[in-house]
């Protein structure tokens, strides 16, 4: 039975990634050469992803070092905050970034107060700024793991040899960074490669358009399916190439177990370094907290007097998040069960399927689904279901990574006992597997729920005009320039995202057997 279920799950994953790609390539208009604006989109996609990943990783080094070697009040809170962008809806962060860094925002007003015309945020620098906001925390967590993985004996030896900061850097830190940074760079590059919502709102025209955005525009503005599909082919190829590079570079593993202990650093006990680290920590905290704080302050009053349509949209988004969690479980559990019992090769296949979902970008999948569904059913009438399904697929790699080790442990430790008791099928899952995997399962469910709650990808492509989800509603409010209502909706969205994440994650911990 598990065999059938896992085959069905894999088939659905293949349908979402490869199936949509085939549909797109059949419709792609390859008769024309790429135009100037197509090349501009390809170039911009590369440039912004390269800049975003380079800046994020470069800044991550001092931040991670400061966090690694200092103990200060709020340290664990800061580490939690570094994980927040994972569940923060992109569009909410954009609202916050505009409110702080926009020319009429917090900083813009300060600059104007001293008589300087504030620079505009729209364009390459705005896009990169938003990407750094999202990915600096991610990169910092990767680098921080590298730092904390340095054995304390080595630091002790360095201290005994009288190493100063420079020697510690040359002999300990540089080799560590050399092994950690490439992986972090590739991951951030991959994330930024399929950037859509940021370029949609902060791009500012043809000179700052990503391929994902160009797909959206070809489809939504001109209904040129052939051109959209051609761009989608390019996006898919890029995703696959970057995915292969990511596969070959040692990827950072795990999501931050054991980041709670600062390392004892004898070389860093100098007042100058102490001050520098303090400044770095303050700066990064402000950079992350100011936009979120602005959303909280500007949205708080508005949140309670939003039009009822916004609350309906919120209810729709909650329903999508729940459906997405259920679908994710239906996909991930059979695969995890199969992987834990089968050969290494099949296990690799299953993980490869997960990786396919990373390479498949939302616009490519969305366009493919539209092409496949249109002859069968009104795509708009199933937009919510499609959103739930695509987000379940997108979360699958994270979910598998979290669940598989726990399932494997349960099988290794209790598998033979269960076998001798004849505990099989559904009962085995219910009595053995689920209680032993509650914690990672809860975490995976939380991530899935938060991701689909805040998703502005596929839904932007064919979301219903009169029954939008909350992120789509928020985007429309910004389009109609109802900024007060938009800030209220943004706060509502971020609170709901945190709520669904917390509920599942907490639920997993409470009922956990381990």
């Amino acid at each position, binding site marked *: 039975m598990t065999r059938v279920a896992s085959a069905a799950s894999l088939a659905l994953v293949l349908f979402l990634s490869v199936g949509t790609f085939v549909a797109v390539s059949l419709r792609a208009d390859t008769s024309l050469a790429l135009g100037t604006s197509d090349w*501009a989109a390809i170039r911009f996609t590369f440039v912004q992803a390269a800049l975003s990943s380079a800046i994020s990783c470069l800044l991550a080094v001092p931040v991670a070092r400061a966090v690694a070697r200092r103990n200060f009040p709020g340290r664990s809170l800061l580490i939690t905050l570094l994980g927040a962008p994972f569940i923060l809806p992109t569009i909410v962060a954009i609202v916050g970034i505009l409110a702080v860094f926009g020319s009429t925002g917090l900083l813009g007003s300060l600059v104007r107060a001293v008589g300087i015309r504030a620079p505009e945020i*729209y*364009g390459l620098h705005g896009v990169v700024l938003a990407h750094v906001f999202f990915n600096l925390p991610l990169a910092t967590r990767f680098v921080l793991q590298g730092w904390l993985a340095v054995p304390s004996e080595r630091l002790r030896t360095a201290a005994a040899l009288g190493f100063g900061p420079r020697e510690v850097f040359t002999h300990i830190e540089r080799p560590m960074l050399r092994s950690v940074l490439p992986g972090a760079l590739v991951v951030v590059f991959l994330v930024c490669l399929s950037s859509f919502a940021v370029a949609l709102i902060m791009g500012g025209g*043809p000179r700052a358009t990503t391929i994902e955005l160009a797909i959206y525009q070809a489809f939504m*503005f001109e209904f040129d399916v052939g051109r959209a599909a051609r761009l989608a082919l390019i996006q898919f190829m890029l995703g696959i190439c970057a995915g292969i590079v990511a596969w070959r570079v040692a990827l950072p593993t795990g999501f931050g177990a054991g980041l709670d202990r600062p390392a004892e650093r004898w070389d860093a006990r100098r007042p100058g370094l102490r001050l520098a680290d303090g400044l770095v920590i303050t700066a990064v905290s402000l950079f992350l907290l100011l936009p979120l704080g602005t959303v909280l302050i500007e949205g708080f009053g508005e949140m309670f007097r939003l039009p009822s349509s916004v609350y309906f949209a919120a209810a729709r988004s909650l329903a999508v998040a729940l459906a997405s969690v259920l679908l994710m479980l239906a996909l991930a559990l059979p695969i995890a069960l199969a992987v834990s019992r089968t050969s290494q090769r099949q296990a690799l296949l299953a993980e490869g399927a997960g990786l396919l979902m990373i390479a498949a970008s939302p616009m490519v999948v969305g366009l493919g689904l539209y092409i496949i*569904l249109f002859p069968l059913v009104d795509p708009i009438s199933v937009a*919510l*279901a499609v959103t739930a399904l695509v987000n379940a697929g997108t979360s699958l790699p994270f979910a598998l990574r979290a669940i598989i080790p726990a399932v494997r442990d349960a099988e290794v430790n209790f598998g033979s006992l269960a076998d001798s008791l004849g505990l099989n099928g559904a009962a085995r899952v219910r009595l053995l597997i689920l209680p032993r995997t509650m914690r990672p399962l809860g975490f995976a469910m939380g991530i899935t729920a938060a991701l689909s709650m805040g998703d502005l990808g596929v839904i932007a492509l064919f979301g219903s005009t009169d029954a939008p989800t909350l992120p789509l509603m928020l985007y429309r409010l910004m*389009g109609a320039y109802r900024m007060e209502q938009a800030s209220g909706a943004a706060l509502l969205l971020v609170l709901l995202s945190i709520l669904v994440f917390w509920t599942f994650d907490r639920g997993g911990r409470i009922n956990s057997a381990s």
Partner: protein
Amino acid sequence: MKLFLSALSLSIGFAAAAGAQQSVLTVYTYDSFVAEWGPGPAVEAAFEETCGCDLQFVAAGDGAALLARIQLEGKRTDADIVLGLDSNLTARAAATGLLTPHNRHDEWDLPVRWDDPLFVPYDWGFFAFVYDETRTAEPPGSMEALARSDIRVVIQDPRSSTPGLGLLLWVKHAYGERAKSIWQELADNVVTVTPGWSEAYGMFLDGHAEMVLSYTTSPAYHMIAEGDRTKRAAAFAEGHYMQVEVAARLAASDQPELADMFLEFMAGDVFQGLIPTTNWMYPAKMPASGLPVEFGELVQPSKALLYSSDDAASVRDVALAEWLEALSQ
């Protein structure tokens, strides 16, 4: 797959309000039409009084995106009427085959002859760059002067917005072969390109730019609704491009009689009387109440520019390619 998705949507989707016995007329339109200060609320109230139906406006982006939306939804669309296309889009919209003739024979008060079998006009106006005289003391007097200046402007995307498309055709009509170089010079004045008019105008009012692409009639809104006389439209020496906004019935409509009733209502005195002070445009048929006196203070273009709808369709692709190229750099 189909069954699975349908079942899933049913379980996710929310059932339409129970007991919706009244027939529903669905009108797809642009964002600003349904804004609280726009024509939407008053039109809805007035039409529902006479039709015994439920008129529902659905905002689907700006005018040009409306066309893509009905193409995207195809024959399954819920829309009975699409309201907010303009004369620059009618040829392309007609080619989709999704619209159906209106059988009306009205006398219009338009500056151009109108006998299109598919599209019913409801208002018209001239595109213009609007500025705030307290922030910009000396506005540019032509597109070239604007391009040479360091004035920051917000414009709309010609692929999604009818003003954006209007500007594209304005530059092309006035400058022909030189259009591309005008755009290359204008590129550094453009703060951002928004998908729709509402966002661009909001950004201008919030101070993100000194000028915004809008209409010669936009200052009337500030004079009448806000008593603010500081917002002006800059008169350009080369003339101003015109827009005739239109509506049409969808062939797939399940409410053809109601749709006809709506088009009739749209050409009537009540609707036309609302246009000047809600959509802030010139009415397609002069209402009995005439125009507000403030309209007399508006900029009168020295020259009205307009392509025929067929020419607009063919010029558009060339002009769009030039625009994309200039602004991609």
